[in-house]
């Protein structure tokens, strides 16, 4: 198991933003966090990244998350925040190379990795631009690429021990990564998420597009007002009744060539 949450609760300004959240994040899975605005999705993902202190226990690979040093933590999880704001003129390449910071790599390895990730993500033309001058979508892509580079440095579960319990790579926490991506890059993101999961990492992703969640996720955690309304396999959780109730819309789930889609009215 990559991460285990046990009875997570958080109170902020007298308001219960997270209430008794428990669950397991297993390697090889993509878990979508869904819920209306203010349901606690970002708060939850921030708690997973140890950016917020809350009541309850979080275990990362069997050890309390508090025991990890900042460096060790970064060797096990990568986090993409919802908004990033850079005030200073850093180049895209410089931003990307920061992903190798927690790992003991030679300068040469760092350069090769950065070059590779730039190629993989098709951002060659942006590599030497000032990060602040990129469009919102371009910035988002670079940040996703940065966290992916960090993730890909995490020790993949050894192939020699195919024991399912040992299957625990890194944890990739993505807070609304698709919000400003165009269709092409949304699909690229989905592909990379699946690839990361296949390599044994666990991907936690906050999404607003329910259809995207339906196609991408293995499991879904449905949040409402800080509580876990439902948790489990994607087609079991994302039913017409639950989605309609939580999102206060009339949702219909239709099936087309073995795939489900939601339409709303």
């Amino acid at each position, binding site marked *: 198991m990559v991460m285990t949450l046990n009875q997570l609760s958080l109170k902020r300004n007298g308001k219960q933003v997270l209430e008794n959240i428990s669950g397991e994040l297993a390697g090889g899975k993509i878990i979508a966090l869904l819920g209306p605005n203010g349901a606690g999705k970002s708060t939850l993902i*921030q708690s997973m*990244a*140890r*950016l917020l*202190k809350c009541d309850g226990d979080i275990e990362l690979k069997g050890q309390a998350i508090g025991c990890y*040093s*900042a*460096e060790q*933590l*970064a*060797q096990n*999880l*990568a*986090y993409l*925040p919802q908004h*990033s*704001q*850079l*005030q*200073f*003129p*850093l*180049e895209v390449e*410089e*931003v990307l190379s*920061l*992903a190798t*910071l*927690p790992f003991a790599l030679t300068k040469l390895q760092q350069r090769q990795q950065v070059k590779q990730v730039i190629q993989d993500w098709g951002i060659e033309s942006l590599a030497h631009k*000032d990060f*602040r*001058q990129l469009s919102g979508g371009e910035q988002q892509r670079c940040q996703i690429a940065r966290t992916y580079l*960090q993730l890909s440095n995490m020790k993949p579960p050894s192939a020699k021990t195919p024991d399912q319990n040992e299957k625990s790579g890194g944890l990739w*926490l993505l807070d609304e990564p698709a919000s400003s991506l165009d269709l092409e890059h949304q699909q690229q993101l989905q592909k990379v998420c699946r690839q990361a999961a296949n390599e044994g990492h666990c991907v936690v992703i906050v999404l607003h597009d329910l259809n995207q969640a339906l196609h991408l996720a293995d499991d879904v955690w449905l949040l409402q007002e800080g509580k876990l309304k439902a948790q489990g396999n994607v087609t079991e959780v994302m039913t017409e009744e639950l989605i309609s109730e939580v999102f206060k819309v009339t949702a219909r789930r239709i099936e087309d060539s073995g795939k489900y889609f939601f339409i709303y009215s």
Partner: protein
Amino acid sequence: MIKKLLVSPFGWLIGILLSLCICLGALLLGSLDAHSLLNSEIGHNILWNIRLPRVLLAFVIGASLSLAGVMIQSNVRNPLADPSLIGVSGGAALGAALMIVAADFIDIQVHYYIPVAAFIGGILATMAVLKLGRNDMPGGMALLILAGIAINVIAASLIGLLTYLATDSALRHITFWSLGSLASANYFWLTLCSIALLLVCIWLPRQHRKLDAILLGQAEANTMGVDVKRLQIQSIVFVALLAALAVSACGIIGFIGLVTPHIGRMLIGASHRYLLPLSFFLGGSLLVIADGVARTIIAPAELPIGIVTALLGAPVFIWLLIREGKRLQW
């Protein structure tokens, strides 16, 4: 190109040579010509005991303030932050003003004690700011800056009260001190400031990637393996040390800490690997030049150096604001 130079030994050689040239120029600049400086006893005295420590101190303090500026701006992720924001110059000014006013009532060698009082004031004020601004919330750094502003305001109002009580000569002294001057440079303060700068120069370059990560954001840095809080506290302690020593040795010198990091970033970007060495040389050289201007432009009298740096720095800063505004379409 400049970037590669800056991290190569060759680039360092050029930086050192350029700085030496500037220092040498400043050394020879002044009322006596080079010939009489080297050949008469008075000339020797002026050269070795007055000008040399002064020029070197200018370089060390310029470099210190500039590095302190980089550290504070990067740590609070705010391009408008200045080393004085953590309360250190306000406290130092208050300490100095107290000593100047007290000198009218007690019979002491005030020149020796003003820097000491300033140093104590600066450190006390910084400690108060750290105490006030200490919290575990994500906005901790913003709170620290606000606490710094509050302490600076309190210090300023107390200085105002003191000037009300002060005699005319003390008043003049306070005003002159608060504009900064390197006139009282000596080897004692040069040694102290150099040791502090050396400590920072040993520690800081190793943090260059961590500082880059903080630029991206606290959450990002925290999840990229940087213990942000620890790095911030360490940085603040070093900033306080550098700024307190600088203020004590030569009064308040504005704009170097604010503007030189920006000039550096405009030249080579914000990556600390390059920015740190560049700021070191730029800050040092700029203050040496500013001091050269300050002591020759109305010779035999002297301008307070704070006026020169502000007059040079403010237009640069305004130009920078306009340029940045255009580039980022604010």
